[in-house]
């Protein structure tokens, strides 16, 4: 930014751990969230600054400062990444306090390079992810699931929970398949020396026991949201509580209502009132994963699989050498010993498309077929003995011929107008 355009408000003080501080200039990025705005930091391209909105009250700012200070002092140990990927930022964790005129206004964090990443939301739609340069297959998706579960497990070990865990808050590195979690300052922290709640939730990923209530067990909430994200990633974006109800009137329209009522139709034991959506491929998942999903969505909160259990279950599928993932006849990756979910999905979609086309063709051909049938009946030229018998039965065994000379429908209507006129006249005279 040219120095002439610099505003005094954009010059802030960065306070690093160990109380080393420096003055820096912020540059607008145009990115803004619910709590604050993101700025670039001049001379530090690997960092960005989150500055809380000016409308944030002093009391809130004080709480934020306390939390950010604790986070600076207690950076969690994250899953190890190979040396060549050390620049990957797995958590947008605070790295420095930001003060303006000695007052806390925000924090600095490592920058997640958006060019190398895409929102996890995009992976829920194969076409969208392909457009973003990510060719999703089950090998990659399981690795992403494993990396996400590992990251959450690391946080849970430090008694930190995300609470508002949803695909929009997670970035996926396209080439490396590591994940980055955003909005770390909104995490729930519950340690012996420090506690901070996370009031923000998303109903579509909120565990049933926390609907209309505060989240009292944040790790259980994370486990639910993690299971929902994994289910959606592996099942072409289908939410575990999306289904087809036999009784539409009692079936909640919103996913939140279905979660609250536990209307999960993808269990190993079929739900009594809700059916799976036809495009689901969950039956191609291995039993170990299906059992975890059933525990996550159809069991009480305390028996829900933790992030650690997911890590253990997914590790064998995320590893290339385990032999648990193998190519199908068409070359798609699938769970060994299970049907190929990609082929299953293609067959389902192709089947639906074939049925749709066939229906359209039948509908379009219906008038011509009916006309042909009527003409054959009138001319008694049915090639099929069954149709001939049917036509004969309709005609009370009278043999019929075509009119002596071909007449159009209009001609026939003209004759019938005369005939009906004669009939009305006859009725007048006879009645």
């Amino acid at each position, binding site marked *: 930014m040219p120095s002439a355009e610099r505003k005094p408000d954009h010059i802030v003080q960065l306070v690093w751990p160990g109380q080393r501080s420096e003055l820096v200039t912020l540059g607008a990025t145009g990115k803004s969230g619910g709590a604050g705005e993101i700025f670039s930091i001049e001379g530090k391209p690997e960092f960005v600054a989150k500055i809380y909105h000016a409308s944030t009250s002093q009391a809130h700012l004080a709480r934020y400062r306390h939390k950010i200070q604790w986070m600076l002092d207690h950076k969690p140990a994250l899953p190890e990444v190979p040396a060549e990927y050390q620049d990957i930022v797995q958590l947008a964790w605070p790295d420095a306090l930001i003060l303006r005129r000695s007052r806390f206004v925000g924090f600095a964090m490592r920058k997640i390079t958006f060019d190398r990443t895409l929102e996890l939301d995009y992976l829920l739609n194969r076409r969208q992810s392909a457009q973003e340069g990510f060719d999703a297959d089950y090998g990659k998706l399981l690795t992403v699931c494993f990396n996400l579960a590992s990251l959450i497990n690391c946080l849970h070990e430090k008694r930190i929970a995300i609470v508002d865990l949803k695909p929009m808050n997670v970035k996926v590195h396209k080439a490396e398949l590591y994940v980055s979690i955003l909005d770390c300052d909104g995490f729930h922290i519950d340690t012996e020396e420090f506690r901070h709640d996370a009031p923000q939730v998303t109903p579509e990923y909120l565990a049933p026991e926390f609907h209309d209530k505060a989240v009292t067990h944040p790790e259980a909430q994370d486990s639910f949201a993690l299971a929902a994200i994994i289910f959606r990633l592996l099942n072409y974006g289908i939410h575990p509580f999306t289904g087809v109800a036999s009784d539409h009137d009692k079936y909640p329209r919103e996913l939140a209502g279905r979660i609250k009522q536990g209307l999960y139709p993808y269990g190993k034991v079929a739900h009594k009132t809700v059916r799976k959506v036809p495009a689901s491929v969950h039956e191609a998942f291995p039993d170990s994963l299906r059992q975890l999903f059933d525990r996550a969505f159809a069991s009480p909160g305390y028996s829900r699989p933790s992030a650690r259990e997911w890590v253990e279950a997914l590790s064998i599928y995320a590893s290339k050498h385990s032999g648990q993932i193998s190519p199908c006849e068409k070359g798609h990756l699938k769970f060994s010993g299970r049907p190929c979910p990609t082929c299953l999905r293609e067959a389902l979609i192709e089947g639906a498309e074939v049925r749709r086309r066939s229906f359209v063709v039948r509908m379009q051909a219906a008038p011509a077929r009916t*006309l042909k049938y009527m003409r054959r009946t009138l001319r008694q030229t049915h090639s099929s003995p069954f149709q001939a018998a049917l036509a004969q039965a309709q005609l009370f065994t009278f043999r019929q011929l075509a009119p002596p000379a071909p007449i159009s429908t209009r001609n026939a209507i003209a004759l019938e107008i005369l005939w009906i006129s004669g009939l009305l006249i006859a009725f007048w005279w006879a009645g």
Partner: protein
Amino acid sequence: MSPLAAIILWAVLLFVAWRWRPPQAASPSAWVLLIAFGALGAGALWFDFHPEPAGFAFWKPTVVYWTLAAIMLILPPLGGGYPAKIILGNYFALSNREWRWINRGFAFLCVLLGGVNLVTAAQASYKDWEGFKFSCMVFLLTIVLFRLNFVWLPILAEVSIHLYRRATAAYRFLSSLF
């Protein structure tokens, strides 16, 4: 519906019939039936707007039945074809012999109905005569049902199919716009 509106509607329908008339020449029996019913129709119109002569109501069924009987009896010997073929519809592949007997049967029935109508009118009560008159209309209704099944329904099917095709084409055109 007022009589004037009914006449206008009928005239429009007759105009449509004229415009859509078949290109083939009509058979003599068709022409005779057309002329006869034209005359009967004109008579009906006349008596709708003028007072009927006393006792004419009793003669009306006999007039129509005997007119039909006369046409059916006179035309075949003169080489005018079988009017029963026009009445029932010429879609049925019956031999001339079969048509001749059907025509004779129709003619006999019409003679009988016209005659019994006069006898009933002369000897039975008015109520009994009315009952007989309306029961005779079952004969006409039978012909209507016969024609409905074998002629009108196929025409209705053809017209419906034509409209359906138009609707499909219109739908395709509109959907192609979006």
